[in-house]
């Protein structure tokens, strides 16, 4: 797990005015930059906005886009919309479990992949859909998942 420097957090905070309306935006930026919302980040935000930590913690645990624990280098989002669901979304989960040994909300031991089950991505025509690091994979055949993940692993971090 990488160490997050206070300066990084401060630099991020200073891009926003001290106004409660930017609370969620700051947390989302942390999520993007660090892969999760680190505790140091919430503490610093609490001071920056003069809001109790508990209020920020309530927000951070309420919104699904935010994670309070570090995630893998690559984020796999499996769509759990109705259409993906009726077109065998759970078989995709089974396939990922076979390929990587993780279930929703888990991270591989080597820290490479995290798996998230997300709400409908609106790409229903391509169901079942999975998004890895922002790239959409439609009409997934669970047996081909191995190859997809091997290729991603080989490419390294996509920024």
């Amino acid at each position, binding site marked *: 797990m990488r160490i997050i420097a206070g300066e990084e957090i401060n630099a991020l905070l200073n891009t926003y005015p001290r106004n409660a309306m930017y609370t969620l935006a700051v947390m989302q930026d942390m999520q993007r930059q660090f892969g999760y919302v680190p*505790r140091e980040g919430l503490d610093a935000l609490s001071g920056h906005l003069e809001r*109790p*930590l*508990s*209020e920020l*913690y*309530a927000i951070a*645990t*309420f919104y699904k886009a935010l994670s309070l624990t570090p995630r893998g280098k690559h984020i796999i989002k499996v769509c759990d919309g109705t259409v993906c669901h009726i077109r065998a979304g759970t078989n995709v989960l089974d396939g990922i479990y076979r390929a990587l040994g993780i279930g929703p909300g888990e991270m591989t031991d080597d820290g490479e992949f995290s798996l998230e089950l997300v709400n409908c991505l609106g790409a229903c025509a391509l169901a079942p859909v999975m998004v890895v690091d922002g790239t959409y994979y439609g009409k997934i055949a669970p047996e081909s998942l191995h190859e997809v993940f091997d290729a991603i692993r080989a490419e390294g971090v996509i920024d």
Partner: protein
Amino acid sequence: MIVTIDGKEVSCERGEYLLDIATRAGIRIASLCHHEGLQGQGCCRLCTVEVETGRGDTGRGEGAQSGSFSDKKPRREIVAACIYPVEAECVVYTDSERVRRNRGILLALLRASAPASEEIAELCREFGAPDGARYEVQSGDGKCILCGLCAKACQTLGTGAISSVGRGTAKKISTPYDEPATVCVGCGSCAAVCPTGAIEVAEDGDERTIWNKTLTLTRCSRCGAVTGTAFEHYRASVHAGTEPPDLCPDCRRKAMTDTMAKTFGV
């Protein structure tokens, strides 16, 4: 303005909350999340009553989900009395068939979620809640019904040590990261406003333990009654510049009376 509650005519001001009007008229509407000092929760929904509006007024639904806005006929709707402002004359039923049925199911649901709460059990008896045999009873000694009064009290008092955490059926009330909250002053206001006694406050000797945090108690120098926690008085002195009290409110009053008596020779 006149509101008719269960056949009784009650006068009120426009915009007054229905629960307040009923209470003033001595009509009981059971509630859990309502607290005089912390208005506007509206989340336990126990105080829902049936209101007939639209005799000239258009009627306002909370969810705005109904598609037809053309009918101006009188209509009955279920509202939460604690946050329903009376804007027009209306007829209120606090114990109609529909209200009774909803209240019973709601209490049975709350009992399954807070099985250890005596207050909920008592309300279930009072209102004849169904047995809820098909409900999955939460394990453990749950008493919390997530009304949020504790968090609101803590926030209102300026401490903000606790809040709601998560959402949906996984929602709970806790401190950040479930750790003893550094900012908690141990004032116990959260426990005082809790309608189901769900917040544990343990006092042992000169210590009070709350939210997994142990604080030192201060006592009245005259009678020895607890006056608060040392941290609470420290925080108050920092923020408001007040001196930590030496006496409890009772003894302070007595001391004042004594002084007056001496001064004026009564």
